[in-house]
């Protein structure tokens, strides 16, 4: 009987499999967001680091948030060493005591001799994180879905009459409320002031309500690209690097609207309780030095977070960076401190609004 042999062979198979899953001591687990972004990091940081030090880098993906880090730290079973986080998550995780504090004095100087504190872009050094890239939350559209008039302003996202088609939006109030207010006529610089009043919040939700029925909500960074590619939406909010990759590498007819982009930073942090603290620190310093940050721009259009690296970006890549002067014109900085205070209430209201 076949079952019998199957059952008889199971323990053996298990033993063999278990033996081969052992992770070598000379390795470091680096966690990031997956897709084109992780690939750029593998090329720019992981491979050269392994070549120089012999330490193998295991690349893991996650989709943001601090829940998984919290679970590991509280379990005392930390398997992630270095992690790539959004600013809001760096602040939150640091608050909760989940990340190792990093002294900026330990970081290498820029190639031009500037100290790390001077070399990183403003806001690029958090208590528990070192910025690696500047990216942007932008609006992108599929050229092939607009035969005549093409959208050119962020406001056009809310104009479904002149620019028909479904819209992709991230399932979160953050930045969406800001966009709605700007589309409703609030100047970029006044957004948080207006949002701090109950009327301002109502106004933002009212604007979102106008397009609610046309929206496909996404959660992970690779989804909006997929939504555009599948023709599920004609326009979507997205991260600039992912759209660049779809357009430049895969030849998709996607265009970024830089108008009213929301510039953001990503950070490397080290999970508290890692068994490889020294190695993690070594990798973090290596990956955020002038040369590595500059090199990463060859693989994805995210700008380096060091001023000394910006000087090394090629002319070919420069126009695709969020920080290029022609793209940065009316960029809106996200106010993370404001969000830390208001996210509980606004998330609740947003969820309730979604459900209605």
């Amino acid at each position, binding site marked *: 009987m076949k079952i019998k042999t199957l059952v008889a062979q199971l323990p053996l198979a298990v033993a063999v499999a278990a033996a081969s899953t052992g992770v070598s001591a000379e390795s470091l687990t680096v966690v990031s967001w997956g897709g084109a972004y992780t690939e750029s990091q593998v090329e720019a940081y992981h491979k050269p680091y392994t070549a120089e030090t012999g330490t193998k880098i295991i690349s893991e993906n996650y989709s943001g948030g601090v*829940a998984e880090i919290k679970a590991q730290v509280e379990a005392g079973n930390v398997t992630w060493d270095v992690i790539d986080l959004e600013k809001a998550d760096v602040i939150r995780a640091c608050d909760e005591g989940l990340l190792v504090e990093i002294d900026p004095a330990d970081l290498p100087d820029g190639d031009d001799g500037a100290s790390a504190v001077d070399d990183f872009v403003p806001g690029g050094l958090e208590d528990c994180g070192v910025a690696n890239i500047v990216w942007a939350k932008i609006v992108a559209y599929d050229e092939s879905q607009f035969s005549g008039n093409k959208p050119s302003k962020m406001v056009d996202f809310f104009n479904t009459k002149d620019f028909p088609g479904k819209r992709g939006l991230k399932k979160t109030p953050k930045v969406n409320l800001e966009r709605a207010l700007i589309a409703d006529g609030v100047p970029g610089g006044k957004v948080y002031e207006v949002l701090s009043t109950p009327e301002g919040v109502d106004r933002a939700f009212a604007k979102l309500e106008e397009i609610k029925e046309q929206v496909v909500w996404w959660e992970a960074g690779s989804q909006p690209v997929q939504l555009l590619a599948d023709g599920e939406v004609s326009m979507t909010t997205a991260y600039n690097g992912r759209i660049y990759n779809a357009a430049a590498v895969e030849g998709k007819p996607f265009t970024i609207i830089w108008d009213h982009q929301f510039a953001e930073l990503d950070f490397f942090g080290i999970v508290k309780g890692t068994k490889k603290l020294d190695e993690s620190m070594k990798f973090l310093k290596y990956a955020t030095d002038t040369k590595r940050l500059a090199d990463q721009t060859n693989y994805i259009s995210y700008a380096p977070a060091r001023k000394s690296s910006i000087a090394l970006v090629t002319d070919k890549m420069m126009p695709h960076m969020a920080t290029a002067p022609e793209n940065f014109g009316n960029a809106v900085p996200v106010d993370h401190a404001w969000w830390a205070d208001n996210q509980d209430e606004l998330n609740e209201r947003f969820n*309730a609004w979604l459900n209605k």
Partner: protein
Amino acid sequence: MSTSVPTADNMQVNDPQLKGKLKKAERFLKIRALLLVAPLVLFVLFTFVFPLTEMLYRSIHNPILVDNMPQAAALIREWGQVELPGEDIFSEVGKALVIAREQKTIGRIGNRLNSEHSGMRSLTTKSARKLGKYTGDDYKTYMLGLDKRWGEMETWSAFKVLSSEYTMTHYLAAFDMQYNAKGEIVPQPEDRQIYIDMLLKTLKLSLMVTVFCVILGYPLAYLLSVLPSSKSNLLMILVLLPFWTSLLVRTSAWIVMLQSKGVVNSLLLYLGIISEPLDMMYNQIGTVVAMTHILLPFLILPTYSVMKSISPVYMHAARSLGATPAHAFIKVYFPQSLPGLSAGAILVFILSIGYYITPALVGGRTGQMISNLIAYHMQTSLNWGLGAALAGSLLIVVLVLYGIYNRLVGASQLKLG
């Protein structure tokens, strides 16, 4: 099936000595049976029941202030919520914030307070930084000068809610209620009410899924039960194959079928039945269709096994006594098949109100269910207390239904294939 077996109770035993021996033997058998079950029961208690209880405890347990600023928490508990607290509370809270900053617990305290009242995070972290340098002893004046929010009742009410080790605040939130600044229970502002709606929607969708399963499953179960076994066995495979196929496989199958450029839309467009793709995915339609598909075998199998045991004699009798086929079916056949049908329907209903994966993947904005909100609070907002309170409420609904199910059919009567 049980034949009557002699036991101490049902046998007319007059010999007291024999009676004692029998009792002893019986006790031995009882203990032996218990010992056989014990390892599994202990295992289930450890890996399942105990964690469940502990998680539910989180819905009322509220130790953050009691653990991190005990003196201040004790004073705030006594505060009447009528007027601003006095200097004693101000100075205790002020000192506690400074200590919390040194011990790096200020972020956690601030985040927890912030979920009761927006802005508390920045208020506490900023004030703690400045209070660290304060050397005077008039904390009240100093803190009121630092930030006007220290003079607001809402600020202190947030402290008050968190000052006791046990709280109802999460259960209130789970039913769209809250404490106001005076400590009274009031409804949440309308634009933040969601959980009752969500619970009702979950019940509505589950009911729809159950009804669809009954409509689709009952005739099929009937047909399977009356066909000759050579045919029914073959058709049964078609029912069982989906049952054995991975949930995620079936969910992705429905995405392939129903998305706007999916198989169904392409076919309908090709045939010229529609001119615009229909929205069948990422909404309630997607959730209900996929869940009906996934849960249908759970209705068919128990219904089928009951129908299989219904003798055709009754129907023949009813017909020969002059009943119309419809009449005979309604009066004679249907009541006999009801135990199987109700068992299946309740099982489908129980399983669907706890569904998470399918709504998360195909539900879009409108097809989300209560489980998705629980997951959101457990994984994203990290408001574990609220997540636990929602879980507790859902669990009560499920257990009540399970109780009914158990009463109706008995847990041991579950049939699987």
